[in-house]
């Protein structure tokens, strides 16, 4: 490989803390690596394992989950629920042939612009070192009804 590998990353951020931080990085004109594509959800507790696996299956080399600091969740404890899910999922990822390091959960507060930059830069570098994710057989992860729905619309 003569050309440097540029990973594709998905960041799923909660509306109140980590997405606000991502906005703040922008308003502060702080630069970071362009590899990450950010998806907004209301709460990190909305992020289910299937969503993360779907991202890997769709070609992501890494998935970053951003939530509020412990105790700061806008919905009381959605971030703890995210933590539980991510911890469990990380144990299962090797069975799919995915290194657990490809999934990262971080608490990033609404005013933590610098931390956001560091997290994204650090994660990008980490996944760059890991190299591309090569899934042998993409597992079928989504409920069938949705699977059909998606393909019907996109191929239409």
């Amino acid at each position: 490989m003569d050309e440097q590998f540029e990973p594709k990353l998905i960041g799923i951020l909660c509306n109140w803390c980590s997405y606000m931080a991502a906005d703040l990085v922008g308003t502060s004109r702080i630069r970071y690596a362009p590899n990450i594509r950010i998806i907004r959800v209301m709460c990190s507790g909305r992020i289910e394992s299937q969503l993360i696996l779907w991202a890997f299956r769709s070609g992501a080399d890494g998935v970053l989950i951003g939530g509020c600091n412990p105790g700061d969740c806008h919905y009381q404890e959605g971030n703890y629920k995210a933590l539980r899910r991510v911890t469990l999922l990380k144990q299962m990822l090797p069975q799919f042939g995915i290194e657990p390091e490809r999934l990262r959960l971080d608490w990033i507060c609404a005013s933590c612009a610098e931390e956001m930059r560091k997290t994204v830069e650090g994660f990008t570098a980490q996944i760059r070192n890991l190299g591309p994710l090569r899934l042998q057989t993409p597992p079928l992860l989504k409920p069938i009804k949705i699977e059909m729905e998606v393909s019907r619309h996109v191929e239409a």
Partner: protein
Amino acid sequence: MSGFNSSTNGHPPRIGVFICHCGTNIAGKVNVPEVVEFARTLPFVAVAKEYKYMCSDPGQEMIKHDIQQYGLTRLLVAACSPHIHEETFRKVASEASINPFLFQMVNIRELVSWVTEDGHEATEKAKAMIRAAAKRVLFHDELEPKKYPVKPGVVVVGGGIAGIHAALVMADAGERVYLVEREPSIGGHMAMFDKTFPTLDCAACILTPKMTTVRRHPNITVLSYSEVVEVSGFVGNFKVKVKKKPRYVVEEKCVGCYECIEACVFKEPRFPNEFDLGLGKRKPIYVPFPQAVPPVPMIDPETCIQFRTGKCPKGCVNACGDRDGIDFDQKDEIVELEVGGIIVATGFDTFDASRLPYYGYGIYPNVYTGLEVERLLNASGPTGGEVLLRNGQKPQSVGIIHCVGSRDENTNRWCSRVCCMYSLKLAHLMKERTGAEVYNFYIDIRAPGKGYEEFYDRLLQEGVHFIRGKVAEVSDWAMTPDEENRLVIRVEDTLIGMVRRIPVDMVILSVGLEPQRDAQEVTKLFNISCSTGNWFMERHPKLAPVSTMSAGIYLAGACQGPKDIPDTVAQAGAAAAEVLALTHKSVIEVEPNTAFIDERYCSGCQICVGLCPYSAIYYDEEKKVAVLNEPLCLGCGVCAAACPSGAAQQHLFQDEQLYAEIEGALVGVG
């Protein structure tokens, strides 16, 4: 299930993509024409256009026009953060008779152009995000904003000048106001001051009339010595639980004669008065300061003989007599309030000067903080307004050290905004009251208010010394006879370029402003965020400076950042107006991002029931399915994530929408 069918009557969807230049903010980095060309190639995109400022009137008109002309059924705007203009473009959609939720905002400014170094990379990222949104928007459903009635009434948390002013404005407008103050009296820091800069108005003369108006106002209920312990509900419909701490004097029975204080077994005040920062003394039964509102004494169980031994002759009870106002058995009382809006005005704390041992606070008795000197200067303070050293003598020379705990990377980086001006004020008062030589040690003088620079000029005329330099240390180490038994300030005078030693009798530390020590807990209580340094975060630093990210909760005063009194009062008025704008509506519209449960797929496993943080889901025993109580749902989506069969979903964040967005963001991007 999906919006694809429900909103298009069987016709293929027609998406309009509108890409904003935001002047050069986006277009300076992202190659917008290239992105427009790319957008035109995406499935179902009927039209893609660019414009310099999409949020401007012509931009909005263009979108409306195109919706009609091209028969668009879905709308995509790639511009700034949804936190800024999502509402704007939803309105555009609905004015052009598209359901406003068949719209998706793509944030290519904060998340792309402003954070990406390379123009090509930024362009590619913008394309990917637009592709993601174009895929997502196919699955959007038509939604209606949820509408709820707004309850009257407002809780104001914090009875300083911010809370007082906001409460009065709203009460005068006819709103029911509950003013919650955790100290025994309202008044806050302002009640502690002697004079206010730059006009040298007596703080009490301008504040106490407002305090008594608050007390007498038929629309205001003052809950003093009380704290908010629980907040639930949502905009327009908050439930606030307030704990009234026992003051052991029944507020309703007390007439404010203070005979109980006279009759206390302690003939002389013996215990440090918290309001005087320990400089003055009080009895176990006391009012913190003469103008306190409510004018009701309280008993401190730590020092009261009756509480400690149970063997007090109870002079206070006898003095109160038939009024029977003393109640040693008073307990915490919980008051439940239902209101439409909340103003948080919890104010600030001053920097703890003992964190900087080289300034000698807590080591040398004649090193004071600015706030302590306010009490010494105050006519109702511990010394009756006379400035005396600990040995009872008047100081001959005074050094005032600016920026203690401000503009310092070892403590707080921010400028506390008020210290320069209050230092000047104290310098003036010191000179006036004691005739002492006064030295100001400053980094920069910041006097950017109406009449402030003129006040600084006046001080220069008055012969106060100004030495530019950050003080290295305060010590009692004398090198010359002149320095014996005095405090020596060692400083580099940066204007003459040499180190000086200046002996003084009294040192005043101009301590900076900090968030309240429990600011973090307060943010959790009200579900608001903190910005850097734990100051409460406004919704937008310029355009929504008194709103928070939590709808219906507003900020006033120094809890949001260091502020002087004029700014605090102005902000309190602004917060009051915002709340009135809310509570005077009969109905409030709330983002319809609630959950919904499709009974057809629900297996009745009840996982969601236990996970919902608001107990908004219950189990229907007859139908054997989970049912959502929609008004209680605040839209976190935890149930949707946990549901094993996909029956629980969240509007605006449905599975298909998120799957489509993720796939769109990834597939084909190199």
